[in-house]
């Protein structure tokens, strides 16, 4: 996760639901009506790179009594709702992570660091380990005739998120190269 990491930038751009804690004039364009003020308790979808900062930085301490309250409050997004977490616990391998969010792991890590969420991390660890076994199975079953076409890997491949795709591609490449080298020098 570095500054020039494309996947990181893409992950940061995904929207999270937020609720404003203040009336702020001029910020109406976040809601879609430019030139107006934004109302307290308005619900807005903000990209994570903006929401993360606004959720930490507070309002003016001098003007307000409730200076500890940040500008916005991040609300529980759909992708970390109990429904999804239960689905992960019951069967990580059959879960369609890609349809939940294509950068699921990256966002989950960011979310968990933001809130110190131990439970989420535990669920993620379990999920990653379970899914890695499946990824390894798929990556190491190399048929040299099929390498060119790439298809016929089944529906599991369609459920991988971006991080898992990198994982799969790397291990698949190394398995393929080893096999090629063993077979004909």
């Amino acid at each position, binding site marked *: 996760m*570095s*500054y*020039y990491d494309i996947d990181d930038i893409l992950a940061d751009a995904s929207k999270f639901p937020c609720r404003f804690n203040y009336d702020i004039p001029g910020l109406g364009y976040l809601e879609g009506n430019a030139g107006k003020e934004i109302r307290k308790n308005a619900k807005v979808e903000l990209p994570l*790179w903006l929401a*993360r*900062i606004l959720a930490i930085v507070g309002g003016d301490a001098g003007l307000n009594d409730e200076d500890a309250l940040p500008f916005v409050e991040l609300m529980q997004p759909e992708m970390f709702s109990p429904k999804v977490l239960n689905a992960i616990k019951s069967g990580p391998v059959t879960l369609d992570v890609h349809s939940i969010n294509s950068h699921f792991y990256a966002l989950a890590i960011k979310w968990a660091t933001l809130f110190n969420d131990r439970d989420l991390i535990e669920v993620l660890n379990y999920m990653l380990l379970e899914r890695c076994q499946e990824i390894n199975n798929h990556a190491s079953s190399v048929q040299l005739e099929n390498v060119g076409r790439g298809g016929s890997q089944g529906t599991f491949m369609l459920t991988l998120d971006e991080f898992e795709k990198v994982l799969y591609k790397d291990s698949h490449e190394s398995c393929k190269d080893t096999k090629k080298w063993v077979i004909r020098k």
Partner: protein
Amino acid sequence: MNIDIDDILADLDRDTTAVDSSLITQGHNDTTVLGSDGIPLNKQRVVPAAISPVSDFQTLMRFWRNERMSPELLPYPHLLMERTLRRIQDQLEHIECVSMGYLEEQSGSAENTSESVGSTALLNKLPLLCMEADLERLKFVVRSLLRCRLAKIDKYSLYLRQFDSEHGVVPISELLSRQELEYHERHSAMLLKLLNNSILRHMPPEAQAVDDNDGSVKMVDEPEWDRFVFVYVNGPDTKQGVDPRLQVNELGQQFYPVSIQELHEEAELALGGIYVMRYNVVRELVLDDMVQLI
């Protein structure tokens, strides 16, 4: 009654091996590796940490593997590379001389019998082929090593720039060779110029820095200190005696104790074992050559 005479036998052995090794190195000087170091033989025996072409090549291979696998840029082995480069040069000239002599011999003896010429040519050819192939192998390792280092310099150029200031533990001239230093300076200057001209000058002044670490995302890439690496524990050099860090566990195995900071856990690296470890845990041992990355 058993009298243990192992040490007496070892003493005898050492004498013979000393003679043997000097013979071998002399043989090397004559045939394959020309002018290994210009060090007279008696001096070589005084320094037991023998500087020989073979041991240098082994050190080079080990350094190459470490450099390929480690997340950080390792300090440049100035002396080793100096020796290796000089040997490549010497060997190149030697091969040229041998092949020239081979041509002369052929033309000179062509008047005699043609059959014997064919057989001597064949005899000469095999050593020549071996020398050339050997040189190619050595050159490949050196090239691959330097390329790998250049890729790391590209990646961490902003991080390396911080090393110039006083809080760097290692001075940058020790970390990089002279050529790498020049590459690093000119390459980062060119990159900075490109960024400045194309994008950064349209930005507000406070957003123009490329090494801003106070923003929401750090712009300076540090090496991934906690990346997992495979290590092989080879232990200290047998000649150097006992390493103070080495300990013995209840099974009689020698091991290095390392502690993993984040988990508050102790781990034992037994000699001859292969482990998957975080790099920052084994970094000291890697730099001291007690373990190697694989």
